[in-house]
């Protein structure tokens, strides 16, 4: 049996950012990036998010590739959980793959719009986007710090 495949919408943006300007090393790096953009902008595509062969936008990525990075695995789980509000989504690969593709298709439209006026290399435009949209509260502090600690300690049995 072959490995699970994520089917996603792959427009010319992938050629431009990965092949032409090499801003992202792999198609799947861009796929995940676009998915977090989609999440950030609250843009999700519920239809046609897998691309279509009629307009040449059919993209495929091996789940194993995406899982090669631990953090990508986490992002996929979080997106699926966020989307479904069901803890089971944290371990359901099919839901995660589909959710990733849906958010990614949403993010794709945002980034396409973002760099539509850039004639040449859009690296700086992408960087500006990231800087402009980073979370206000960087770092783990306050309530979240406590959560981390409590999870750590409680789960690991280090509670005093």
């Amino acid at each position, binding site marked *: 049996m072959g490995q699970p495949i994520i089917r996603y919408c792959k427009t010319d943006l992938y050629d431009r950012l990965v092949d032409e300007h090499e801003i992202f090393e792999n198609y799947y790096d861009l796929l995940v990036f676009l998915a*977090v953009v989609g999440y950030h902008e609250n843009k999700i595509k519920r239809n046609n998010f897998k691309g279509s062969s009629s307009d040449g936008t059919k993209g495929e990525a091996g789940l194993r590739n995406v899982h090669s990075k631990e953090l990508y695995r986490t992002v996929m789980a979080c*997106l699926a959980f966020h989307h479904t*509000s069901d*803890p089971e989504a*944290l371990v359901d690969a099919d839901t995660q793959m589909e959710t990733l593709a849906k958010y990614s298709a949403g993010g794709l439209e945002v980034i396409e719009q973002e760099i539509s006026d850039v004639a040449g290399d859009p690296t700086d435009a992408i960087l500006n986007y990231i800087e402009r949209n980073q979370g206000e509260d960087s770092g783990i502090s306050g309530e979240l710090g406590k959560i981390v600690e409590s*999870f750590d300690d409680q789960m690991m*049995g280090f509670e005093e």
Partner: protein
Amino acid sequence: MQIDRLELENFRQFRDETIAFATGSDRNVTVVHGANGSGKTTLLNAFTWLFYGNVDFDTRPDRLASEGAMANAQPGDRITVSVQLQFEHEGEAYIAQREAIYEKRSATDFDGEMIDSEVTVKYRNNGSWQPRNNPGNTLDQIIPERLSGLFFFDGEDIDELAGIDNQDRIQEAIQNIMGLTILERANRHLDTVAGRFEDEVDEYASDELSELISEKRAIEDDIEEFKRDRDDTQRRKERIESEIEDLEQKLERLDESAALQERREEYREDLAEVEDRIDSLDEDIKSQISQNGFVPLAMPLLKETATELDQMREEGVIPSELSNSFVDSLLDAGQCICGRPLEPGTDHYDKVASMRGDTVADGVEQSAIRIIGHLNEVSDKESEFFDSVDEIIEQRKNLYDRRDELEELIDEVSSELQGMNQTTESGQSIGELEAKREQKETEREESISEIARIEERIERKQEELESLEEQIDEQQDEREEALLAKRRQKAAELVQDELEGSFEDLKDQVRQWSNKMIKQTFDDIASKDLTAEITDDFELKIWQDVGDERVEVDKSTGERQIASLAFIGSLVNIARERYESDSDSEYFTGGIYPLVMDSPFGALDKDHRRQVSKVIPSLANQVVVFATDSQWEGPVEEEMRDIIGEQYWLDFDSGEGEGEYPQTRIATEQASIRGD
């Protein structure tokens, strides 16, 4: 091929003359001496006229028949002009002849009107001469017209070969020498065949399909036209660059401007370095974006998820137990989810290990723990990302400033040069030279933009073409005949693609062979610190070692002419080697060719003439050289004396007197002419 004997009748100023060529292996050179205007170039033209019916005369290009013969004829008389060549080719003896009949129209008509012409080729078969049915084709197969420039060689063209436009000519020459263009011909034929099948598809096609095919053809024409434009602009750009180089070399040589020009060069080098560093920083930014660019945007997602999971934990939806397999995976990885190392023997390791127990709660819980556990890591990565990107951006900004500064300094040098009034040898002031250079620089930039614009257009048209081709493929409502023709068209295109690939590979192979031979020939004759090569882009370049650096030698120097000759010689040699080699090659069969050269010494100085004389005998099995006395005397004569098999002198009589007309006789003795 070995040429034996050339006979001329009423061909321009030659009334009835014969040359027998040297055919020995040691003495393979035939020399024809002649003053300027005595008929050397006419002799070269006799070959091209015989083989292809073409002539290229500077004066009176339409007059082929001898002026004397025409003058002595009466109106209505016919004069026969003829060139005959006896030669051997692949073991068979041949006689080729081209004849043209001219009729004199009036008493003052010295050109005549051609009323008939014929070419015949006979070959010796079992002791008798048999005619070839298709003489023109036979001759073109023996020495194809496209190769004629290589084997019937005008020394005046040598500069062109070594000049700036040489790329195409060198490529063309290499292409021509290879198996006598079989591949190229096949390619052309396939193109025609594919076109014919497309016509057939068109004939049986629906209106819609027919329309798509005409659209496709229109786009193909557009692409061809754009490509021609691009190549023209590319050549223009190269010419401008060469002019800029010339101007800068002038500025370098002049005492008054040398220092400024040198300073400009230094600034340019600095600028190039700065630009390289900027590129490298851009790469770093890309790498950061690719690896961690998603992190800042993912951070809120992870936080949100963590908060919700915590809520669930509190509500008891997620139990607080761990599975054995998860604990094992942490121990194997040597790191706890809190980031602390897990080394066997430590308290922390033992504590984690002791959590393995009876409760098994796989899946959801572990995933939740992973997410929470990653929060710290993600937070660190986010800071790292911004820290390193900020640092790179800062460095890049400094480099941008430096770049602006250098550009300004370069502009200042130009302004300073433009203000200099000292006059140079060419009569122009330094200021004028620099202003011209600036103007050329602008033209160069314009041509670069123009090329980019055309490339973009080509790309767009290619996309349109691809989409049309897809639409054509998808058309289903065709008749059987159209489908069959379409399949055949596809097959022809496929074979064409394959052949093109082989052709390119072979061309590069020949370039490499040729390069090797040029290097050898050049090493033997040129100064020690010079090397010649044909670059990957098919440019003939000569390099000089200056200290640790290698600089390109200026064009139009003797070395370049020698390299050009060495290049031609290398091709003749490659063709010969391929012909004699046992190895089978489907496409590249090679051949043995003579070399007929008009004034190969051009305007070279003595030293270079000597060097060229050394190269000439090695260029081909059989060499025919036309030269003036001033080109011949001295070093050339000394070097070539021992390898000359036959020698002739062109005795030209300009026919100034009453009833006299220009005529050249070919004599075997110099003394007899001088004595006449």
